[in-house]
């Protein structure tokens, strides 16, 4: 469950969007469309609570650490921490169980559990971020360009992650890839 009321974001003089009302419930998947620079990522960042909105308010659930997952193409990871250490750190801070093996198996990264963040390839980093986003099995997950930079297998993993959680999770996808519209139950176009 994630949503917002009367949400608006202004950079300088330009409003990316305004008067935006959303309410995505488990079972639904909202795909955010729009040309480059239309504000998709910004919207997701605001929903995730890492960028301040200019007006309006968001609902992220009781404790965002456990009720919200977020994975974005542009999100870096810690250069010196290994994949496993990322999962352990996140788990200890959130207060959920790390489930390292389980998650790494799901995103097919088990072979790189000991690799440092700065040595991960694009696709490996994307996989790690998926694992981190779903770690606490939150009721709402935000994915920004999930399958960018992923190989065939990786894209299937994205599909599995979404389909297997559909029933109990609300998804918001921001994407430029028409392929990913297949997940949509709802769509919204910005800009």
């Amino acid at each position, binding site marked *: 469950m994630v949503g917002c009321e009367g949400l608006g974001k202004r950079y300088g003089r330009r409003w990316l969007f305004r008067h935006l009302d959303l309410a995505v419930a488990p079972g639904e998947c909202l795909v955010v469309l729009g040309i480059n620079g239309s504000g998709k990522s910004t919207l997701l960042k605001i929903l995730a609570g890492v960028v*301040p909105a200019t007006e309006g308010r968001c609902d992220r659930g009781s404790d965002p*650490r456990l009720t*919200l997952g977020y994975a974005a193409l542009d999100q870096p990871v*810690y250069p*010196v*921490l290994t994949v496993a250490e990322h999962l352990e750190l*996140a788990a*200890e*801070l959130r*207060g959920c169980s790390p489930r390292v093996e389980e998650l790494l198996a799901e995103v097919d990264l088990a072979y790189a559990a000991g690799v440092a963040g700065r040595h991960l390839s694009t696709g490996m980093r994307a996989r790690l971020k998926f694992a981190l986003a779903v770690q606490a099995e939150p009721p709402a997950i935000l994915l920004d360009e999930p399958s960018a930079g992923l190989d065939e297998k990786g894209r299937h993993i994205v599909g599995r992650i979404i389909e297997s959680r559909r029933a109990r999770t609300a998804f918001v996808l921001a994407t430029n890839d028409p392929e990913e519209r297949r997940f949509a139950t709802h769509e919204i176009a910005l800009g």
Partner: protein
Amino acid sequence: MKSPWAREIGAMVRKEFRTELRSKSASYTAFMLSAITVFTLAFAFYGRELPPDAASGMLWAALLFAGVGTLTRAFVAEEEQGTGDLLRMWAHPHAVYWGKALFAFLQMSATAGLVTLLFFMLAGVGVSNYAMLGLALLGGSAALAGMVTLVSALVSRGSNRGTLAGVVALPLLVPLVALGVTAGRSAITGLAQPAGWASCGGVWCYTLLVLAMAPYQLAAVWGEP
């Protein structure tokens, strides 16, 4: 099972240690700054031996600049790497603050020890009241760590953070230095003990004040989007 607080703060401290041990940048800077500082200040008086009540001033100046130069990176580095958002989504701001402040305190008191040692070796002045000096330095390090960590969070998302951090942190710490210097003087010379103890108490009051307010201010300036 540990309390959630202990677990979260522990996790933060562990993370800081790992990062530091694998990329030794911070401790390198700390070492560099404190060494240069002490050397220069001691050298300023070489040939003529140091008037004991100036010694305290130098000691604190050295600590202040070494501390500010080193610790301001705490949050700035996170934002520059772009990992600040990860912490924001994973952790409770207070846990982040306490974790980083604790690590900063350890780092700072290590620096303080090093600086003091070097300093008295080079400057060759005796101390008449070790307890007072120790207490003042300990409280000072804690206040420094607490304040500079907060300042680093405050500036971390602004432009030209490096300079701004200094501009913000130094004047805020001047009261601390004033009290610390007074305490240090009477600890070294052994004169005006009551005043010395009073300012030592002052240092600790300042420390407690900082540590009491800081987590909430951090939550306001860094924790929220």
